[in-house]
């Protein structure tokens, strides 16, 4: 296997991981601050992608499409928080799983009803299309490289938001002791709505960014949702740093496993059996990774509480 191919796969894994981080950051923030498992996070990803596809189709502008995705998902997120989610904070996880499962049904069928069952397409803008040459003779799509850069900027922005701003202080305080910050005069329900909307907006943005390299369709959110859950569980629920490390780990494991395992199996098996065994194992690899991490560290790599 050539080094160029391997380097490309590493970049692909990095790109997948960074996009997973954008998705998982909101999920882990919502869990850390409000203690809520939100299965409907994948629906917000889908809403972002559909909003972007609709706006891009109407205006032709990719930047406007991204803004639309971010604001549509954040708005829907805020609305859902006020109407439904806020009643779930004091419930057990079972109720949260079910209520947000119900939200998935509503959002998926609602989107199908609005946009139909056929996938929409969101094109990569012309100024980001085509490959670029990287040092070492690697030709890599500019758009995917942009995704990595955008994702890293979002990660940096989140770190600054959490560590440097007043809102960040409130969020961190909310993770530690919600009664205390309420007693100090912070409007806790407003804070929760804002945190939920930030998470939703990030999911929507991720949906729009990823929507340009795959088709935009109903049900696109759930596979990503499950991967995002894998990420936050490996990283430790509530930890942004854990989410970043785990998402890159998951992205690389998934991408490199798909390439390396069949090649590895070919060393001691015949080619067709090696391909099928290798691809079967690699499709399970990240779940094996997750189970392994939880068995060794039952609260994830950077998790504090169960």
């Amino acid at each position: 296997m050539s080094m160029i191919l391997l380097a490309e796969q590493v970049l692909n894994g990095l790109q997948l991981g960074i996009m997973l981080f954008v998705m998982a950051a909101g999920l882990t923030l919502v869990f850390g601050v409000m203690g809520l498992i939100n299965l409907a996070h994948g629906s917000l990803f889908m809403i972002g992608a559909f909003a972007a596809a609709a706006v891009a189709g109407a205006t032709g502008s990719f930047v406007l499409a991204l803004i639309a995705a971010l604001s549509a998902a954040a708005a829907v997120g805020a609305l859902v928080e006020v109407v439904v989610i806020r009643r779930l904070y004091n419930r057990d996880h079972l109720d949260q799983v079910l209520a947000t499962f119900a939200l998935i049904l509503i959002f998926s069928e609602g989107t199908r009803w609005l946009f139909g069952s056929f996938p929409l397409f969101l094109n990569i803008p012309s100024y980001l299309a085509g490959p670029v040459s990287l040092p070492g003779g690697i030709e890599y799509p500019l758009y995917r490289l942009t995704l990595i850069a955008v994702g890293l900027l979002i990660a940096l922005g989140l770190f600054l938001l959490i560590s440097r701003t007043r809102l960040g202080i409130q969020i961190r305080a909310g993770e530690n002791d919600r009664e205390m910050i309420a007693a100090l005069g912070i409007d806790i329900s407003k804070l929760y709505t804002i945190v939920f909307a930030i998470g939703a907006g990030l999911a929507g943005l991720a949906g729009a960014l990823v929507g340009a390299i795959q088709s935009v369709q109903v049900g696109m959110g759930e596979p990503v949702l499950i991967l995002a859950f894998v990420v936050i569980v490996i990283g430790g629920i509530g930890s942004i740093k854990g989410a970043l490390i785990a998402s890159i780990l998951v992205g690389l494991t998934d991408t490199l496993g798909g390439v390396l395992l069949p090649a590895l199996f070919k060393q001691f098996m015949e080619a067709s059996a090696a391909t099928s065994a290798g691809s079967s194992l690699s499709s399970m690899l990240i779940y094996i990774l997750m189970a392994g991490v939880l068995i060794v560290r039952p609260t994830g790599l950077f998790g504090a509480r169960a």
Partner: protein
Amino acid sequence: MTRESLFNIVMMSLLILFPLWAWIADEPFMITLATKAVILALAGVGLNIALGLGGLVSLGHAAFFGIGGYAMGILASHAQSYSPILESPFLIEGTKSMPVIWLVAIISSGLAALAIGVLSLRTTGVYFIMITLAFGQMLFFFSISWPAYGGEDGLPIYVRNGFPGLNTLDPIQFYGICFAILAVVLFFCARLAKSPFGLALNAARQTAERVETVGISPYRLRLAAFTISGMITGLAGALFADLNRFVSPTMFSWQTSGEIMVFVILGGVARLFGPVVGAALFILLEHLLGGLSDYWHIYLGLLLLLIVLFARGGVIGTFAGKGANHD
């Protein structure tokens, strides 16, 4: 007699009378619907042991449902193509006999539940939900990418498997088999909940420390409950595969886990008949709303949301009030 047991008797009579009516009125489709409801109820009854009695929120029960399904699919596909499953070191042949298939389904899903339980029960809370989900997804992706038994396309079985002395192709007779199994399992569950094991499990769900103080290991109780739970759901999977004469990776999908959980919650967690009511209501809604609108999942979602938010305790909780074993 409590209102809940009255409710249970009414439900049980409906499960007998409705298919009888459909049989007399010559409505085979209605019998098939009832069969589907009974089989899905059985899957829910399995989950209810872990979820209701043990307090173990498993989002991975599709794993056992799928293993049961594939146990049937693999055995029957080898029997229909007359090729043995294994030739050396000893011969294992496929089979079309339901009792053998059930046994294999129960044992293999039980072993899987034991293995998954040993690893998953080290975690609690959200992490338990997520690790069970992960194991379910592992099997889902394995079933998609493993080409020997149909892979992504699934595996059709051309003729329904046989049961000695009965014609399983006749809808009412197949319904009878499924109903009898459900009745036996419900009786077993009622006894289990009142047995020393069931009482200890219930106590471990409420306060694990107290159970530990009297010298019982909550981990072992939960592991046993999780295993029994997986076995019953696996049996349901084998029956479900026989109903459709088709097995596919969908049986392993996490939406299947979610739906099995929905049956339990819709009817009422930790109620003996909760999953039965839930599955019957689900099938009824699917049939009625599905006829009204292509987008019936919206209404299902809304209804589910209302039940979770405002009618805690599900249908049985709403009709029969608080149960003795439900806090």
